[in-house]
């Protein structure tokens, strides 16, 4: 499964819809402090099923919805969708027939949530299970958040074991 596209709308500082397409190889993301780069990491983790607001630097899950700026009012919803190309590797059997697999997550300000896989409504559990099988969702070593690389060296021995267990 190869990550091909990230669509983000109303999520944190991405008030307007933005689309990233990822080619093979190394993609760099640059920009000034506070412009939204790490918010993209949060968006990817959220779309893959992250349920802890603390892990997204928030206090409540509602914190991921664009809360407004001096020139714009808050939006009523946050939406992120990830599109993967089925390259035959690590694809769960029930999606083996699809050329692309798109996962979408929406959160409304009233607290309602929506989840979709290939435009079909599903539960959050279906999304986390999809990723569990692929090795994509393992946060421990495939996503290194800002400032956290040093923690591996200062971590407790059992936490380091947990990272290796993710690969086992």
């Amino acid at each position, binding site marked *: 499964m190869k990550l091909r596209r990230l669509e983000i709308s109303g999520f944190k500082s991405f008030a307007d819809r*933005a689309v990233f397409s990822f080619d093979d190889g190394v993609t760099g*993301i640059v920009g000034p402090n506070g412009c939204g780069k790490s918010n993209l990491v949060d968006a990817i983790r959220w779309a893959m099923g992250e349920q802890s607001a603390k892990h997204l630097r928030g206090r409540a899950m509602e914190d991921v919805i664009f809360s407004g700026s001096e020139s714009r009012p808050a939006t009523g919803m946050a939406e992120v969708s990830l599109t993967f190309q089925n390259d035959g590797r690590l694809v769960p059997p029930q999606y083996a027939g699809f050329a692309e697999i798109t996962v979408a997550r929406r959160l409304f300000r009233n607290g309602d949530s929506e989840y979709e896989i290939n435009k079909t409504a599903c539960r959050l559990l279906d999304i986390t299970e999809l990723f569990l099988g692929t090795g994509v969702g393992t946060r421990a070593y495939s996503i290194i958040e800002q400032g956290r690389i040093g923690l591996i060296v200062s971590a407790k021995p059992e936490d380091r074991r947990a990272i290796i267990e993710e*690969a086992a």
Partner: protein
Amino acid sequence: SKERFKETFQLVNDRFREVFPRLFRGGTAELQLVEDPAGGEPGVEIVAQPPGKKLASVNLLSGGEKALTAVSLIFAIFLIKPTPFCLLDEVDAPLDEANVGRYNEMVREMCRSSQFIVITHNKQTMEATDSLYGVTMEEPGISKIVSVKLSPSATAAA
């Protein structure tokens, strides 16, 4: 299961022993299993010795050495069990020029089997990417993206 962990641990340890001297241009490192005093599963310790230096507690290493040691372990795990993509957010921040270079060389090698997305403020790293997205906030508080580079020929201009 315990068997599978032991097996994976061996593979990762062998890889870690190779990756560390490659990123540090020498030196040695390895992982060790340590008994849990509370009687649980054994934990994992890192033993690392940069080239020419004497073996000492990993805590005495410098900020950059600690980061590069952690990167060596992450890359070793990744080489044993690649994931479809890998997101690295400002991992190169504490590294000096030479280390940034070796870090980027390894990322380039590993990106054949997976996609790498690196967030960075570092010019060397920017030049080592295949494509580059810029995130801007012209309207304060509102993020917008711009595609900055799509081919090697554009690198010189970036």
